[in-house]
């Protein structure tokens, strides 16, 4: 009886250990524990450098997966050890930054959807001599926190341009779909779109629940039949919007921020007018290059200005070129 119990416990333990061994792709870290000598951002010169990327994306988000691919590709090409972690909760994200600092990484890449919450952790990293590069959001606070540079696109400008583009297409009533409740950057895009377009209504949906997204957009289109343009801020949401418009028998034009392979084919077939592309692959790739340059040659990039990766527009004219890259997860 007892031995059966303990056998079962042992089995559970063994299963856990087995699964961990299977899934541990990069295996345990074999970094030399150089006792806290992070005086000038580099504990070990000559050897491969370690860079931690900490973002606010939720796991499995298609946009952030491209950022991750950019960072890991650059790491492979430049001989930099890149680790990627993310958490949408700003408190948890700041703890991941503390974690990277405790590991004495040689460089840190952070996306700041909520800069105030990350302030203490990022400043602690800077104080520990770790070069920090901010990406994607938090451009206005980047320099104040002591980051080397910011890589991203200006959300307000991007939203304004998208709104203006829809307006010039003769649209009069816009629905702007916000998919993450806590993300200021998304609100800025819709505010920008309002400036560039005019009559705009915002709709709040939850990206983690695709069914709900489609139903909500459909409902909005049905209640106000004068809506003739929908601007979504994420490729997954864009496709839901296309379906919703179809089901609601609405003639609304759908435009979106960001790309994935489905959006590309929808642009080809004319279901989506255009995509605002912030080329987020660069937001993963460039910081690794910049940190490598800083580490090897004390170079900085951007001259105190943000390094802009967007907005670029993908529409029928250039979609074929982009398509093959979107399919492999780099656009």
């Amino acid at each position: 009886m007892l031995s059966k119990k303990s056998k079962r416990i042992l089995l559970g333990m063994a299963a856990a250990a087995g699964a961990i061994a299977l899934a541990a792709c990069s295996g345990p870290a074999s970094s030399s524990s150089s006792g806290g000598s992070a005086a000038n951002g580099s504990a070990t010169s000559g050897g491969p450098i370690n860079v931690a990327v900490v973002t606010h994306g939720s796991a499995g988000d298609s946009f952030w997966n491209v950022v991750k691919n950019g960072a890991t590709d650059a790491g492979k090409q430049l001989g930099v050890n890149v680790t990627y972690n993310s958490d949408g909760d700003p408190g948890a994200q700041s703890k991941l930054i503390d974690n990277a600092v405790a590991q004495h990484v040689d460089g840190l890449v952070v996306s700041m959807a909520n800069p105030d919450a990350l302030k203490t952790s990022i400043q602690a990293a800077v104080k520990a001599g770790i070069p920090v590069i901010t990406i994607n959001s938090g451009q206005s606070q980047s320099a104040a926190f002591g980051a080397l540079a910011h890589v991203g696109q200006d959300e307000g400008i991007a939203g304004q341009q998208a709104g203006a583009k829809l307006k010039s297409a003769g649209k009069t009533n816009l629905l702007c779909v916000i998919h993450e409740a806590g993300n200021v950057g998304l609100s800025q895009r819709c505010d920008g779109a309002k400036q560039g377009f005019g009559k705009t209504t915002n709709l709040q949906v939850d990206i983690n629940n695709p069914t709900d997204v489609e139903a909500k957009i459909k409902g909005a289109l049905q209640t106000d039949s004068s809506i003739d343009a929908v601007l979504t801020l994420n490729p997954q949401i864009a496709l839901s919007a296309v379906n919703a418009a179809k089901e609601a028998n609405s003639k609304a034009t759908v435009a979106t921020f960001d790309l994935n392979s489905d959006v590309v084919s929808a642009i080809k077939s004319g279901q989506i007018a255009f995509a605002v592309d912030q080329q987020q692959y660069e937001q993963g790739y460039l910081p690794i290059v910049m940190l490598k340059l800083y580490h090897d040659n004390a170079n900085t990039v951007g001259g105190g200005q943000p390094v802009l990766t967007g907005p670029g527009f993908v529409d029928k004219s250039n979609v074929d070129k982009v398509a093959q890259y979107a399919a492999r997860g780099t656009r």
Partner: protein
Amino acid sequence: MSDFSGTLTTDERIASPSLLNRLAVRPEIGALIGALVVFVFFTVITSQFVTPAGISTWLDTSATIGIVSVAVALLMIGGEFDLSAGVMTASTSLVTAMLATKLGVNVWLAILVSLVFALAVGAFNGWLVMRTKLPSFIVTLGTFFALQGINLGVTTLVTGTVQVSGIATAPGYASAGYLFASTFSLAGTSFPISIVWWIVVTALAAWVLVRTRFGNWIFAVGGSAASSRAVGVPVGRSKIVLFMTTAGAAWLVGTINILRFTTVQANQGIGLEFEYIIAAVIGGCLLTGGFGSAVGAAIGALIFGMANQGIVYAHWNSDWFKLFLGIMLLAAVLVNNGFRARAERVRR
């Protein structure tokens, strides 16, 4: 639960259980062993897990889960659930932040108002559960959604955005921050004060549970509400107080968060309720009530925090993160079950 105290004259009618058996009866023993296993595991395979800076990160993560999970453990021993505890951490943060930044209320007063708000919601949960006889799982699920909606709706209504920040410039921030969000230095590393709160809350809960009359009532109402009522235990009042306790603990975490990060998002806290429950279950609580421990829940939160940060120290691909977490939690609960089965035999 009842330890022998004082001297005992040997009595051949009373069997004296062996030390191993006496340990196995403790609900937190499984969690303790699980925690040791996880600790040793990450200590061996990573180089920074047991440096002061490393310890600070995982204790930090454990503390904010642990504070609420201890309260949730008391509630679960009392035979009820609270799914609104996670979102409540955000609600209380938002109430505090909006009062302080939009109305210029002193931070201390804002914190007090949000405590009143939390206790009111907790009391409402308890009252509704007792009044309707609905399972608390359902009632608090309703509260969970309602609070989520209030969080987003009120925040966008009042501020026009989805974050509330700027509490750092409000009157009274410095002194309140000192109590809830400061750091203390140990071994040249700064540790957040939330760890101290966690220890205090755990000690207090453990004392209430095993040394006070109210603690006995908690076990009684969780074991059998009908029998407790028959012997004069105030079932309704006890359960309402327990719901208020979880809301109060969520308020404490919300207060720590808002003062530490000086900003709060409307969508925070979703999903945390399950972390609290799983920490309590690892700590030996039964889903059916009447059994468990506060110290166990704190250790459960410790396992959670260690796994959470340890996986990052191990440089594993973060895509697999939740898989590790799930496996670890299952393993811990399995160990627990083995011990509990043994404990049942010892008791008989």
